[in-house]
């Protein structure tokens, strides 16, 4: 692919992301309990996977397709925004997030386009390992990927490290873990709540291939996914992002929720 074509492709991803960000903010306006900050930090990662990389969504068997697990389930508005762009979720349904007859506040597998129910942090990587092992049994692990997206706050959960060891021990190379390193968790900056240590060293010590990227840079991020394809072992992408990315006042504060009067112009 030549430089111009790549530039056009990247510009298209930015356009998709702009539309998706507006959707996230609209969801945050109609329902203030929505986690806008975390959704905006992870959004470019989802756009890159869905529209830069492409996911094979169905196969004859569940091991003949790609999987995406949003382990940091509170960022589900970003997933809905991307699924709306893909035409999987009708645009008008977004307004009904968290309504009794609307979209769930955390990923639920009964929603089309959502592979796995999450919401309770720390479980996605273990689930990904089980799916990847089933792919190995069915001989499909080199054709399909299991993407699992975690938050940096989520790494407090001990189960993440149980699973990190399992994935590495079994050499489950179809697993691609992505940590949305936005620096915040519910009660504040991640380091203020609990020491995270040297993230790259923690994963590397368990045998993972570690790639660090700017999580808002599509070119870098997609290159990391290509590197994961040929790593021959499980890869974690530490994607450094900004909570509230694209929404100036939220980005500055590192906040999670938005006041409708601040967001009005952004949603138009």
């Amino acid at each position, binding site marked *: 692919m030549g430089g111009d074509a790549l530039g056009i492709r990247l510009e298209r991803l930015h356009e998709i992301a702009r539309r998706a960000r507006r959707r996230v903010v609209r969801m945050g306006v109609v329902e203030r309990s929505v986690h806008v900050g975390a959704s905006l930090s992870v959004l470019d990662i989802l756009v890159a996977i869905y529209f830069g990389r492409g996911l094979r969504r169905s196969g004859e068997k569940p091991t003949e397709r790609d999987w995406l697990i949003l382990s940091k389930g509170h960022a589900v508005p970003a997933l809905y925004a991307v699924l709306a762009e893909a035409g999987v979720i009708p645009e008008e349904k977004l307004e009904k997030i968290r309504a009794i007859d609307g979209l769930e506040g955390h990923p639920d597998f009964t929603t089309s386009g959502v592979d796995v129910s999450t919401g309770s942090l720390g*479980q996605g990587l273990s*689930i990904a*390992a*089980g*799916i990847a092992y089933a792919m190995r049994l*069915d001989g499909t692990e080199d054709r399909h990927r299991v993407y699992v997206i975690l938050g940096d706050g989520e790494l407090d959960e001990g189960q993440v490290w*149980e699973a990190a*060891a399992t994935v590495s021990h*079994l050499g489950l190379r179809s697993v691609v873990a992505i940590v949305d390193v936005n620096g915040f968790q519910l009660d504040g900056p991640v380091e203020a709540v609990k020491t995270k240590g040297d993230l790259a060293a923690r994963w590397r010590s368990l045998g993972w291939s570690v790639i660090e990227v700017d999580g808002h840079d599509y070119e870098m991020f997609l290159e990391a996914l290509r590197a994961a394809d040929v790593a021959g072992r499980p890869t974690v992408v530490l994607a450094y992002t900004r909570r509230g990315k694209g929404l100036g006042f939220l980005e500055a504060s590192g906040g999670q929720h938005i006041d409708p009067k601040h967001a009005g112009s952004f949603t138009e």
Partner: protein
Amino acid sequence: MQGASPSSPGGLGTIRDAVGKALLYLGDADPDVVVVTADVARSTRTAWFGERFPERFVNIGISEQDLVDFAAGLALAGKRPYAAAFAMFMMRAWEQIRNTVDRMRLDVKLVATHSGFSDHGDGASHQSLEDIALMRVLHNMTVVVPADPPQAYKALVRVHEQVRGPVYFRVGRDYSPLVTDPGAEYRLGRLEILRDGSDVALVSAGPLLAQVLEAARMLGERGVSAAVANLHTVKPLDEEGLERLARATGLVVVVEEHLPRGGLFGAVAEALAQRYPAPVYPVAARGYGHSARSVLDLYREHGLLAEQIARRVLELLAGREG
């Protein structure tokens, strides 16, 4: 190691051995069966499966939460996983079981060994006296507590054939005298009457049924006609069968290797309170256990030996007359 035939299992050994052999049978019968365990392969007898089907066996290490969600992933991807651990430590993953396995109604079979007081030597940290309550409250969970080795074998095979969803399969360790007819068909969800009687109904499950049957025999010598029911399926509960028992006897005593809250006693009392309010009493663990050289020593300490059960039933009957 050969898997016995499901119709006439013989030479099964202890109840955990029977589970290990049933898994061998299932491994042969269904290529989608995958067994996972948490560094208790030999103790749970799943090592036998691992020897015969090494590709379909994963030892996750000492990490029960990962164990349960790994099994969930296998089930999402079309496999039929069995996750084996000590009952007590499976409970460490209750939230994973609730939020991932049960909420998505995944076809994950939780094989919990060393339940109740059966891990007598290891003491209270290893003895599960709360697990039936914790599993029974889950919306989609099937809960099975087989009585003896042949029933454990047949029940596991039947569960595999009949249930596409989460199952908690609770067995003990070694103490497991034969109490059922090895040739009898296993009927999931149906109360099994081991002994007829008209004065009192003794309802129990698991290896403790050996003590309960002996208690009923002792009561017979005292002129008390005691029915004994094997409540091997705790959920879904055979409410009709329980109502019939309550109507026939007027007094139900639930004997269990579990604390008296939320387990078999809870299940039976909840059902009868709605269908046919009859007096229901527990004979259950009195608190945490501790180490003992024999499970029978713990039974004695908690009033679960046959003569103690019989004495308690006589007290209850006398109280009702008085």
